[in-house]
């Protein structure tokens, strides 16, 4: 059988498998797998042993291909979905201070949430958005959403729609325009923040549905940042937390916390030390910690096991890679 045939065969088998699983889901007989604790541990041990074998092979000068690394990472991320293992989550100081920052807000406080990310960064930031909204709605904080990224406000709507289905929150019967508002996207990056500081309405004459600003009771009286009690920025790049700190915090004195993708987070840590940011949720880890603090179990917590497993695999391959490097095989295969 030639290579092309093999590839077609693999795709065919995968397609049939997926079709059966999907049919099972729709038909209702497929409710998901869960490995027992014993099986979970066996899988972990098997992976560890195979990694040792790879290390041994590398020491012997036999290098593995890059696809093997991809395969291992894929497996290490996927298997924990089905494992009945749990992971302890520790609260870091920057998450603690962020939580305390919003915990001291009295009911009725206006919270500005800036959504500066798009679907590609959603796995990290969406859990933060959800637990943040859940906390706000549960504690009667008023939420104003804006976005400096075009798809940001849409991500906010997805999160709000999901949170409003929560029983406790549904019971509150929250009203759009009174309890929360989505003012949509505005182009202009940090200039938007600057203008919001002097004239909030000029940047958002209408909300994302086209309702005029003055017809929205929640924001009608918001003139500038002095009418905002707390700012929360979810950012995946530029414009993002750095710009919010430089303009809203340093120029207008807005009290702010931020949720960042892990890539962005190290750049924003200096702002905590200098007091420019109240706190930071960094990556999925930060999301999981915040979920723990607010007493909910969301995707952040759920994915932490996959995250840790993947990290172990990456560390293992860093060691293997370095072994290969020092044996002089750098550009050969890895």
């Amino acid at each position, binding site marked *: 059988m030639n290579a092309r045939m093999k590839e077609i065969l693999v795709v065919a088998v995968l397609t049939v498998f997926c079709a059966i699983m999907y049919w099972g889901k729709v038909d209702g007989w497929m409710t998901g797998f869960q490995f027992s604790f014993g099986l979970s541990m066996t899988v972990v041990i098997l992976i560890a042993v195979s990694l040792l074998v790879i290390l041994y092979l590398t020491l012997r000068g036999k290098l593995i291909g*890059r696809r093997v690394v991809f395969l291992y990472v894929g497996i290490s991320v996927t298997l924990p979905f089905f494992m009945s293992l749990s992971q302890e989550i520790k609260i870091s100081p920057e998450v603690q201070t962020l939580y305390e920052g919003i915990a001291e807000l009295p009911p009725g406080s206006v919270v500005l949430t800036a959504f500066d990310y*798009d679907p*590609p*960064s959603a796995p990290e930031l969406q859990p933060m958005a959800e637990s943040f909204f859940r906390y706000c709605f549960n504690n009667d904080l008023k939420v104003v959403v804006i976005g400096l990224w075009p798809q940001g406000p849409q991500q906010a709507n997805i999160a709000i729609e999901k949170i409003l289905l929560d029983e406790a929150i549904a019971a509150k019967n929250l009203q759009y325009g009174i309890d929360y508002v989505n003012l949509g996207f505005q182009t202009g990056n940090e200039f938007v923040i600057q203008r919001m500081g*002097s004239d909030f309405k000029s940047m958002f004459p209408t909300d994302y549905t086209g309702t005029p600003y003055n017809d929205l009771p929640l924001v009608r009286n918001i*003139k500038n940042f*002095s*009418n905002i009690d707390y700012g929360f920025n979810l950012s*995946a*790049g*530029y414009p993002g937390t750095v710009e919010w700190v430089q303009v809203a915090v*340093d120029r207008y*004195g807005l009290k702010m916390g931020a949720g960042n*993708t892990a*890539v*962005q987070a*190290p*750049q924003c840590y200096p702002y905590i030390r200098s007091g420019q940011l109240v706190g930071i949720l960094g990556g999925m880890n930060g999301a999981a910690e915040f979920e723990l603090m607010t007493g909910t179990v969301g995707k952040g917590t759920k994915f932490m096991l996959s995250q840790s497993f993947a990290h172990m695999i990456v560390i293992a391959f860093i060691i293997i890679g370095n072994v290969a490097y020092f044996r002089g095989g750098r*550009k050969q295969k890895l």
Partner: protein
Amino acid sequence: MSFHIAFLLLSVSLIVPSPSAQDEVADSVAVSDSALVVAAPPTSVIASEHEYDDGEALDLSWVPSIDDQLVGGLVIAYRVYRSTNGGELEMIEELIPGANQFTSGELSSDSSYSYVVAAVTTSGEFASNATAPLSPETEWLNYEKKWLFLIGLLIAGAVMYFIETARKGKKLFVRKIAGLEAIDDAVGRATEMGRSILFIPGIQDMDDVQTLAGLTILGRIAGTIAEYDTKLFMPVSRSLVMTAARETIKASFQTAGRPDKYSDDMVSYVTDEQFGYVAHVDGIMVREKPATVFLLGAFFAESLILAETGNSIGAIQIAGTARPAQLPFFIAACDFTLIGEELFAASAYLSNEPRALGSLKGQDVGKALAMIVIVIGVLAATIASAWQVESMQSIVDTLNSVFSTN
């Protein structure tokens, strides 16, 4: 006039508490006279202009009631009342015991305001005299930012001085930046191999200095390319960058005397969407297998993906960015990396342009200043804290006040 009546009413409340509290007090008085809790009102209530604002706030300060004690105090809160243009008093804020100041915001410079501060006890409110009516004023200059302005002026002045010096033809020294020679070698290598050169100017627009620095270096590279007749292609994610890059390359080809070799197809717009752009560039890399890849500009999450793919096709990669988060990937996956400001330095060095060189030197003045301040500040702070030397502490305080921007 109505204000004076309101004021009189409140003054009366020194003896007779405010209406709402009066009812409660009346009930309690009926039980026992000693239940009436009387406190002295706050004194010396002064309203003053809130400095350096847009005419939206006034500051209020007062001496707390003498009955406001930490232990056994009678005051349970302070209430601030405001009268606008002599109108009725309305309560605007309730403060905790011990408070002695308040900033009243959301005012208009067209109106005048008067304030009364009342000490609240369990029996009622005991109000101060009203302040004289005052209108907030708009200040044009914020003197709290004078140090920001002066230090900024010093560095900007240095930049201008050095630009002028460079213009006059004086040679400005810039240390050699490792990796610069590699640029010409990399172009030569692509020519020898008969393969193309891929130039990626980051994913930011023309308003980002990194993009500008990237394009400056592109100008230099394009000159070499024109001479060697190597194939260049440059997918971009911003329409403005596309236009600017075309003009840059065109100019370089003209300078090199090969305008006929220039084509608009060298630069193409892909999409503004970050990962859409990356997917496309990755595809190009794998299909075209360029011999040399330049990654010079502002990069975000795509840096690793691009550098990794470039590495996997065996291209010589020269990268440079000032985004700290992306540098690790370039350092790991590229052959040469211009770290942070080295990108700007390289662009200045290569272009030999007085403005770029002057800016670089001017910024060095700023860096020298920061280094000196850090050394003096840290030494003084250490001595001050270890041996409690007051003169050292005053140095630290001065430096902190100079560099504090709030």
